[in-house]
C-alpha cells in the first residue's frame, strides 16, 4: 500500500510538471462536451420548430447553420484533444527518460553494474512507455468524467428538474460505478496479463528449446502440450472473467435503464398524464434534448472504464521506476567534492577512506603517490579493496574521507583508459567499436590498434576490413577476444592513465599472451598503468607491486 501511495505521489508530481498540457487536453474535452450540448440543442430545436410549429425547412437555415457550426467545433476540439494528449504523453516520457538518465549518471558505473543491463533498459524503455496511456487517456478522462456529467446535469435541470433528478439519482451511484468499474477492470487486467504472460512463457520456453526438441524429433508432441496448456489457462481465466465483466454490465444496465426511464417519463409528461412536478412545461424541444443528452451523461464514465487498465499499467511501471530513482537519490555524496590540486606529474592518494558499511571500512587511511609512467600492480586477497581503489582512482566513487588527485585534476575529470571485468562491444563494425570512445580515430590507427591486440587475423580477408560487422552469422567474439577489443580502444586513444581490473582473468592462453604483450607495449610507450591482478606474468610486468589488504596499501 505504501508503495502504491509512493507511485501515486510520483505520478502526481509528473502531472504537475506537465500541468499545462493536461489542462489543455481537459479544456479541449470540455469544449467537445459544450459543442455536443449545443449540437443537440440545435437538433432538438429544429425538430420542434419543423414538426410542432411547422416552420418551413427553408426558414430554419439559422438553426441548421448553428448545428453545423457546433458539429465543426466539436470535431476540431476532438482533434485538438488528441493532439494535446499526445504531446503531453511525449513530454512526460521524455522527462522521465531524462530523469532516469540523470540518476544513472549520478549513481556511476559501479552501482550500475549491479543490475542487469536488460532490466535497466526495460525500465528506461518499456516502463516509461507504460506511462503513455495514463497521461494521454486516463488522467484527462478522469477529470472529464466529473466535469462533463455535471455540465449536462445543469442543462437538464434547467429544462426539467424531475428528469434531472432521475439522472441525479444515478449520480450518487457514480462513485459506486467507478469503484465497481475500477475493481472489475483491475481484476480483468491482472487476470488477462497473467494469462498472456503464462502463455507467452510456455510458448517462448518451447521456442527457446526448439533445437533440442528437433534433435529428439519431439516438436509435434510439444505443440500438442502447448495447445493443451493454453486451453487449460483459457478455461481458468474465463471463470474469473465472467465475474469481472459483470461490473461493466452493471454500468451498461444503469445507463440503459436511466435512458428508458427518462424517455418514458417525458413521453407521459408530454401526453399530460403526469399531474405533478414540472412536466406540464415539457415541450418536444426540451423533451428531445433531455433524451439526446442522457447518453452523453454516461459516455465519459464508459470511456473511463475503457481506460482503466492504463492506470494499472502506469502504477505498476512507476513503482519500479520510483524504486530505481530513490535507490540513488538518498545516499548521494556531495556532487562536487573539493579539489586539492597537486603536481601534474603524479597521481596522489591522500589519507583516503572508503566504507560501504560504516563498521567495516574497505579502505582506511590510504596514502599513495604514483609517478607518471609507473606500472603498478595491485594485489591482495579478493575483497581486500583492489577494485575499490581502482574505482576511486577512476572517479567512479568518491572517498568518504581524504582526496585523490590525478595529474593535477580531480579523479575522472580527464579521459582515461578503463578495462573492467566484463568487456563490452557494440553491435556494429570493428570501426564503430573503436570510434565509440575515440570518434576521431583514423582507419590506420584502428588497424594498428587491432594489430597490437592480435585481432587483425579476424578482419584479414574480410571484404570490408574494419568496416565489416563484428557479429556476423551468429559468430560472436569469445570472452578473450572481446577483452582484447576493449584493449584496442585504449590503443586508439592517447590516454595518460590506464586502469585495468583483472585484465587476464578467465582468458584462454592465446588471449592471455596478446593481453600481456599489449600491456607491455603500453608500458613502453610511457603510459601510467594501474591494474589489479593475481597473475604472475603481470606482476613481473609491473615496476611496483602494492599489496592491498585489510583496508591498507603497502609496497609488496
Amino acid at each position: 500500500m505504501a508503495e502504491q501511495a509512493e507511485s501515486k505521489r510520483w505520478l502526481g508530481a509528473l502531472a504537475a510538471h506537465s500541468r499545462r498540457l493536461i489542462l489543455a487536453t481537459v479544456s479541449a474535452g470540455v469544449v467537445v462536451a459544450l459543442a455536443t450540448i449545443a449540437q443537440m440543442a440545435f437538433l432538438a430545436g429544429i425538430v420542434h420548430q419543423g414538426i410542432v410549429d411547422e416552420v418551413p425547412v427553408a426558414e430554419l437555415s439559422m438553426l441548421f447553420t448553428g448545428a453545423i457550426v457546433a458539429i465543426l467545433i466539436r470535431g476540431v476540439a476532438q482533434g485538438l484533444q488528441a493532439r494535446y494528449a499526445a504531446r503531453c504523453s511525449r513530454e512526460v516520457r521524455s522527462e522521465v527518460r531524462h530523469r532516469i538518465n540523470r540518476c544513472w549518471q549520478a549513481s556511476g558505473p559501479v552501482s550500475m553494474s549491479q543490475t542487469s543491463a536488460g532490466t535497466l533498459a526495460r525500465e528506461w524503455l518499456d516502463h516509461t512507455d507504460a506511462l503513455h496511456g495514463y497521461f494521454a487517456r486516463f488522467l484527462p478522462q478522469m477529470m472529464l468524467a466529473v466535469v462533463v456529467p455535471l455540465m449536462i446535469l445543469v442543462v437538464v435541470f434547467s429544462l426539467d428538474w424531475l428528469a434531472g433528478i432521475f439522472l441525479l439519482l444515478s449520480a450518487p451511484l457514480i462513485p459506486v460505478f467507478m469503484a465497481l468499474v475500477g475493481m472489475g477492470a483491475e481484476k480483468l487486467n491482472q487476470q488477462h496479463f497473467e494469462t498472456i504472460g503464462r502463455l507467452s512463457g510456455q510458448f517462448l520456453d518451447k521456442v527457446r528449446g526448439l533445437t533440442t526438441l528437433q534433435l529428439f524429433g519431439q516438436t509435434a508432441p510439444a505443440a500438442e502440450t502447448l495447445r493443451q496448456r493454453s486451453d487449460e489457462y483459457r478455461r481458468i481465466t474465463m471463470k474469473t472473467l465472467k465475474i469481472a465483466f459483470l461490473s461493466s454490465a452493471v454500468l451498461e444496465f444503469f445507463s440503459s435503464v436511466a435512458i428508458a426511464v427518462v424517455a418514458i417519463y417525458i413521453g407521459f409528461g408530454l401526453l399530460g398524464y403526469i399531474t405533478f412536478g414540472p412536466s406540464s412545461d415539457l415541450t418536444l424541444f426540451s423533451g428531445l434534448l433531455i433524451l439526446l443528452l442522457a447518453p452523453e451523461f454516461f459516455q465519459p464514465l464508459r470511456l473511463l472504464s475503457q481506460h482503466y487498465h492504463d492506470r494499472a499499467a502506469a502504477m505498476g511501471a512507476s513503482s519500479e521506476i520510483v524504486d530505481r530513482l530513490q535507490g540513488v537519490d538518498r545516499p548521494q555524496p556531495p556532487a562536487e567534492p573539493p579539489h586539492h590540486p597537486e603536481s601534474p606529474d603524479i597521481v596522489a592518494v591522500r589519507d583516503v577512506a572508503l566504507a560501504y558499511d560504516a563498521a567495516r571500512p574497505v579502505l582506511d587511511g590510504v596514502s599513495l603517490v604514483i609517478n607518471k609512467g609507473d606500472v603498478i600492480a595491485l594485489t591482495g586477497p579478493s575483497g581486500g579493496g583492489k577494485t575499490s581503489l581502482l574505482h576511486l582512482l577512476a572517479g567512479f566513487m568518491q572517498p568518504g574521507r581524504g582526496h585523490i588527485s590525478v595529474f593535477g585534476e580531480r579523479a575522472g575529470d580527464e579521459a582515461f583508459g578503463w578495462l573492467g571485468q566484463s568487456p563490452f562491444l557494440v553491435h556494429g563494425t570493428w570501426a564503430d567499436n573503436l570510434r565509440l570512445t575515440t570518434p576521431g580515430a583514423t582507419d590506420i590507427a584502428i588497424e594498428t590498434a587491432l594489430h597490437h591486440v592480435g585481432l587483425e587475423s579476424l578482419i584479414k580477408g574480410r571484404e570490408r576490413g574494419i568496416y565489416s560487422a563484428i557479429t556476423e552469422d551468429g559468430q560472436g567474439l569469445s570472452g578473450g577476444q572481446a577483452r582484447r577489443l576493449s584493449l584496442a580502444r585504449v590503443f586508439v586513444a592517447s590516454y595518460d592513465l590506464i586502469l585495468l581490473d583483472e585484465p587476464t582473468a578467465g582468458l584462454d592462453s592465446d588471449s592471455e599472451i596478446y593481453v600481456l604483450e599489449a600491456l607491455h607495449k603500453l608500458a613502453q610507450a610511457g603510459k601510467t598503468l594501474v591494474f589489479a591482478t593475481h597473475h604472475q606474468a603481470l606482476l613481473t610486468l609491473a615496476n611496483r607491486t602494492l599489496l592491498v589488504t585489510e583496508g591498507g596499501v603497502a609496497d609488496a
Partner: protein
Amino acid sequence: MRELAPWLALIFHRPGRLVTGGLLILATLLAGMGLLALSGWFITATALTGILLAAGVQASINLYVPGGGIRFFAVARTVARYAERVYNHDTVLRLLTDIRVALFQRLSTADRDRRTRLRGPQWLSRLTNDVDALDTLYLRLIAPTALAALVTAVLLIAAWLMYRGELAVGLALVLVPAFLVATLLVYLRTRHLVYQQTAARERVRTDVIEHIEGFGELTAAGRIGKHAALCLRQAGQITRNEARTDTRTGWNLGLSQVMVNLSVVLALWMGLELFQAGTVTGPMVVLLPIALLGLQEIYSMLPDAFARLGGTLASAAALNRDCAPEPSQGAREQQPHGNDCALELERVTIRFGDHASVLSHYDMAVAKGEWVGIVGHSGAGKSSLADVIAGLEKPAVGRVYALPLAYLTQKTVLFDDTLKANLLIGRPDATDADLWRVLELVAMAGRFVHEPAQLNTWLGSMGSQLSGGEARRIALARVLLNKAPLLILDEPFTGVDAETRNTIATGMMQWLAGKTVVSLGHAPEALPASDRTIRLA
C-alpha cells in the same frame, strides 16, 4: 496486406465463433441505437398527441408497444453487451492459442540458420510483441470494420425503403467518405510512421543495453554524456512518431465524427421536407437522425485500430520471415558406407560467412561401438564440429555420414515443465522405472526422491531451482535415455565436480555398452573414458 494472409486464414479457421461474436456485437449496437431511436420516436409521437389532446381534439396513442420496445432494448443492450464481452474474450483466447501453436509448428520446420542468427532474448521479446499484435486483430479491427460497414448499409437501405431514394443517396455521399476517413485514410497516413517502429525500438534497446554494459569504459573516455544523448535522441524520435500517429488518428476520428454528425443534419433536413410534404409522419422524421447518431459508437472504434494496422503488418511480415522454410532440403542422415562404421566425415570444411574456416578438409571415421574423445582449446571448432555431425549445420565443403544419433548440445536446455516431461523428450515411451534408473546413473535420483512430487517436480523458473551442474546432468540423462546407436556429447560434465563425474562416467560404460560415443571437451579428463582421443589444433 499480403503478409497478413497466413494469419487471417488461421483466424478465419473458426468462422462459426467469429460470426456469432460479430452478431453479439451487432446486437449490442442495434439495441443501443434502437433504444435511443425508439425513445425519440416515442417522445415526438407523444408530443404531437399531447398537443392535440390539449387542443381538445380526440386523439389516442398506443403506449404499450413503444413502451415495451424501450424496455426491451434497455435490457437487450445490457445482456448483449455482457454476452458479447464474455464470448469474444473467449474467442480471443482461443485465437491466441491457435496462433501460438501454429507459429510454433511453422518455426519448427523453418530455416534454422535464421533462427540462430536471431537467437537471444531480444528475438524472443520481439516474437512476443509480434504475436500479441496478431492476437487481437479480429476483435479490434476485423469485427468493428465489418459491423460498421454492415450497420451503415442497413441504415442506408432503411432510408431508401422508409424515406426516399434521394435521402439514401445523400447519406451515402457523406457516410462512405466518413467510413473511409476512419479506416483507409488513417492507415495510409500512419503506415510509414508505425511500420518501422518495432525495428526502431529494438535498435534503441540494443543501444541502451550497450550504453549500460559499457558504462565504465564510456565514463572513463568521457563519452558517457554523448552516448546518453544519442540514446535519448533515438527514443525521442520514436516517441515523436508515436505522438504524430496519435495526433493524426485523433484528427481523423474528429473528421469522421463530423461527417457522421453532418449525415444526421442531412437526414433531419430531408426528413423535415418529406414531413412537410406530407410523405412521412413527425415521429418518423426523428427516428433516422437519432439512429445515425448511434453510428458514432462504432465509427469511433475504427481509427485507432487502423492506426495500428501498419505495425500489425510489420509484425506479420517479421513472423513470416521467421517462419520462412529451409532454403534447400539437403539430404541428410546418409548412412555410413562401411557396415562397421558409425560416423564418417569426408573432407569436411566448416566456415562461417566470410570468416576464415574453423576446420578444413577434415577426415574422420568412428567405428561402431567405439568411444572417441575430441579435445581442443576454446575456439578450435569443437561445438561447430558437433553441430555439423548432428546435422544442425551444414559443412561448407565435404560430407558427413552418420547413424541415427542423440546429441547433447553444449548449452543446457531444460523446459519449464516437470522433470518427467523433460526426460520423456529423450524417449517418450520410457517407464517411470527407466527414468529412476537413469536418474540414479547421473546421481540425481537422491535429489528428487525426497521431493513431494518426485518425477512430477516442476523444473525451471517456476519450480525447483537446479544448479548448473544439476541441470547438466538432467540434460545428460535425457540423451542417455534415447535409443539412438550414436551419441554426441559436447562438454557432458560442465559444472559437475570431479567425484560425481567419475561415478557417472563409470555408470555410462555399462549403460551405453555397445553404443558409439563421440564426446567433445576442452581436456580428456572432462570426458568419459575413450578408446582414442583426437586433438583439434
